[in-house]
């Protein structure tokens, strides 16, 4: 199912009874939402459950979607609420997954892969609120304006939060990078002996 219609038009069709058009939105948002949740939770099965929950909620609340509403902030707001409700439920997930797996770069990988791995780890060390704003603005590519709509705050406040999060990200990154460099020197020394 492909169409070049904007998200908003598609969502209006869903709202007005063409539930099958939700497939178009699923196509467009399945992967971004999944990566948003993996970034937040580092739990793949839980992330899939949450993506599923988002689309069930869209069906359920489709009538509350008003013409003229920017779709991206709307769906990400649903996504945040779904996550918040899941945390409230506090049901431990079946098994802890290989969550940390993708963050560990293999020893012989390219330098840029190692940089990415350190960046991921740095991101994971941030408090959830900071991680979330970076995931939304950088990884998911939401505009500040859209994030402001979603959070119900001023654009200026979003920019301040983005910058604070970036500052902390840099600090953590530099610390981890230094640690990694020390470790690899130590490993190198061992190898020599």
């Amino acid at each position, binding site marked *: 199912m492909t169409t070049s219609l904007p998200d908003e038009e598609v969502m209006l069709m869903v709202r007005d009874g063409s*539930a099958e058009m939700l*497939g178009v939105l699923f196509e467009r948002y399945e992967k971004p939402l999944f990566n948003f949740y993996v970034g937040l939770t580092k739990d793949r099965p839980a992330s899939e459950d949450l993506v599923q929950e988002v689309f069930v909620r869209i069906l359920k609340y489709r009538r509350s979607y008003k013409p003229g509403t920017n779709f991206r902030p709307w769906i990400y707001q649903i996504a945040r609420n779904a996550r918040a409700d899941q945390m409230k439920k506090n049901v431990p997930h079946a098994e802890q997954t290989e969550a940390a797996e*993708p963050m560990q770069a293999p020893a012989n990988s390219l330098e840029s892969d190692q940089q*990415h791995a350190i960046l991921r780890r740095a991101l994971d060390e941030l408090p959830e609120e900071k991680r979330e704003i970076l995931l939304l603005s950088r990884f998911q590519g939401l505009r500040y304006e859209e994030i402001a709509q979603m959070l119900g705050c001023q654009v200026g406040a979003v920019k301040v939060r983005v910058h604070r999060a970036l500052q902390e990200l840099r600090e953590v*990154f530099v610390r981890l990078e230094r640690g990694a460099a020390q470790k690899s020197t130590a490993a190198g020394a061992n190898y020599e002996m």
Partner: protein
Amino acid sequence: MKCEHAAEFIPDYLEGTLKPQDAERLEAHLESCAQCGKEIALARELTVLPTEEPSAALRTRFEAVLAAYEAGRRAGVARAQDAREPRAWTWNWFRSPALGFAAAAVLLVGGFLGGRYETNTNGPQSHDEVAALQGEVQGMRQLMVLSMLQEESASERLQGVSLSTREEQMDPKILTALLHTVRYDSSVDVRMAAIDALSRYGNHAQVRDGLAEALETNQSPLVQVQLIDLLVQLHDRNIIDQLHKIEQDTDVNPAVRERAQQAIAQLS
């Protein structure tokens, strides 16, 4: 330019919306400031981080829900056309001994609340009204929920369900009423909203049992799938036998049977 000054520019710079003359000033600062430069470099790196692929099961589950939803809606339309169907659940409601008190109380305050309602159109105002009432009379909100769950219009019942979720401690009477709604409400939307509201109380055995019973009797595929999703989330292994029955029942919607099969694997 100092770093604090640069900080104001960096977010817009990243989005490409910084005025050219400010961008020039920022870039001049970046030539001499490694810290701000690093921030920008990392921010750019974030946009090209490798992404992960969800499993194919995610799409399958989505399609199952969508199919179940469509089937449920067709069934709903058919039901609405059969206008002679009696609203038996209303009577069950009053017969239920656990709700005897609640029903009586609702009848008592019903006129009062009804009166307050007429002065308002539906919409946000009635929520304010509800909030105000809650301050006036203790426990009124619970009565309100119980009363709204019995309204003729599905949207009023939906409001009742959403009102119930504002309670910090769920009243046992409301739990019972919501479970009743899950089983007997004529609207799929209301039933699903009630399941949602109950999902926060999955640690109550009463809720888990009630949901499992609802799974036994519910005819709407969409509701069935939602019930299974929730019971799996709650790790309710008691429903495994029931899931086997659903899976083997050829009268059940195929999407629901497929979900039941997955659920058995998830719970085993």
